[in-house]
């Protein structure tokens, strides 16, 4: 197992230092004359208005919550999924029992999914209500 992960480690190291390498090659070859006009942020030609660290509401965050919870569920399901076939093919009697366990695990989380669906948390709010100025 260590040799495979050693290859992965070497791959990651090369991957990390590949981008600076490419950029370095680029830096050597290309012209470099920054002028302030060129360095302003691009806003379709107009002057950029206000700082860009603009505030936005929480629907990005709700998406991230849903992702993390269901990601953890998938991760717990992966070891079970790997041995699922063994349980099904070898011990004949326990097939449906193991399926019941897996179905219970997924069913409980589907309740949360249904709750989020019914409460309309999947709709991407079209109108952005003006931020309540404190």
């Amino acid at each position, binding site marked *: 197992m260590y040799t495979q992960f050693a290859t992965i480690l070497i791959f990651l190291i090369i991957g990390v230092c590949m981008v600076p390498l490419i950029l370095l090659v680029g830096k050597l070859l290309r012209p470099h004359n920054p002028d302030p006009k060129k360095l302003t942020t691009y806003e379709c030609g107009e002057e950029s208005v206000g700082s860009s660290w603009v*505030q936005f509401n929480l629907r990005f965050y709700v998406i991230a919550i849903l992702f*993390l919870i269901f990601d953890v569920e998938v*991760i*717990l399901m992966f070891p079970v999924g790997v041995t699922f076939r063994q349980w099904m093919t070898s011990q004949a009697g326990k097939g449906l029992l193991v399926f019941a366990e897996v179905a*219970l695990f997924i069913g409980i*989380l589907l*309740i*949360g999914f249904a709750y989020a669906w019914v409460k309309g948390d999947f709709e991407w709010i079209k109108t952005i209500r003006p931020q309540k100025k404190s």
Partner: protein
Amino acid sequence: MTAQDVFFYIFALITLVPAFVCVFHPNILYAGLSLFGSFFGVAGIYVLLGADFIAATQVLIYVGGILVLILFAVMLSKNIYGAKFQDEKKKKILPGLLGLILLGFLVKFILTTPWNMTLTDEAPLPTVSRLGDLLLTDYLLPFELASILLLAALIGAIILARSK
């Protein structure tokens, strides 16, 4: 000094230096980013300990999930009047001192207590199928309770985060 020991020290550095930066860096965004390096170091430590599935889970959950959440939170909670994340003016001497004392105790206990460890040096076996069997047989109750915990966390967080 086999190869694994060298890699242990490398991954220990990759874990501790970004963790150090994360604790002491004034800018909260760079602190969040240095967590990225420390999570990778911990994943490397898991690989050295022969836990390949746990290492991949660590990368998937912490780097792909929790760090994305933290960065979203940092960006969403950027206070409006344009303060550029500089928020740390608090002194760090007292917590640092306390930490060092705690560290001293911990290391003393670690080095003195006789752990009955069994030093085996054969290559670690793949763990995924054994984890699956354990989850389905011995640890079935925690497996089902974990889904209830996730359900509670999901519903709680959605209610809180729903922007009325």
